[in-house]
């Protein structure tokens, strides 16, 4: 009785393991992520958002030389050392 119990228990574990391995190696579910987007579409999306922001009436344009100089200095120093963003899509 005990021997048969052990054999049947091992058989069940083997079947479960085999099914797991088979479906892990040969996935039947689609791998495509819902967050996937091409670079071209991302650029279009960015342009669209920028246009919409600029069209907003509450959006005020600031014309101040001091602020412009300060931002210019910051961007001159920061942009060369910035690496390209690593997107995970």
């Amino acid at each position, binding site marked *: *009785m005990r021997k*048969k*119990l052990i054999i*049947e*228990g091992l*058989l*069940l574990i083997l079947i*479960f393991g085999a*099914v*797991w*391995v*088979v*479906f*892990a*190696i040969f*996935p*039947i*579910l689609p791998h495509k*992520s819902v*967050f996937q987007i091409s670079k071209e579409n991302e650029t279009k999306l960015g342009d669209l958002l920028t246009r919409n922001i600029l069209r907003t009436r509450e959006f005020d344009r600031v014309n101040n030389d001091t602020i412009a100089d300060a931002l210019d200095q910051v961007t001159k120093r920061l942009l060369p050392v910035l690496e390209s963003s690593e997107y*995970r899509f």
Partner: protein
Amino acid sequence: MMDDNSPYLPLPQPDDIPVREKEDAMGAYLMMFAGVAIAIPLPLLNLVASFVYLYLNRQKSRFVHFHALQALYSQIPVTILNMVLLAWLIVCLVNDFTFPATFKGYAIMVALVNLVDIVFSLIAAAKARKGLMYYYVFFGRLSYHQAFSKNTGPEKAPVNSPPSF
């Protein structure tokens, strides 16, 4: 036929089993739907329901004891698999919705196990209602050993004794 030297008691035949016991035996397999019945799909709930059912019905007869044991034993691995899946799913959701291939394979395997468990439970419930024995792989043998072994059985009634002087 079973000889007298067998370590197991003779099995009750369908005509000898009262209808009430057949229904009690069938009910053991329906405990797997306990979570669905109260609309709380927690994996552990079905296991608790099966355990409580066994505890309440194990003294009725060896036939009921066997089916309640088999239902409980088959629920244990299914519950563990479901709980691991739930925990792994939460980890994947927290980890930026990334689902590795091993997780997908595991999820499919668990879904198949649940499906097989439901099908076999329904078959076993129908058999129990007819007063028949039905043996799962591994769990059936284990339950039979525990329910029909001559060394096991219903517990003896407790006896009150006077204090010792």
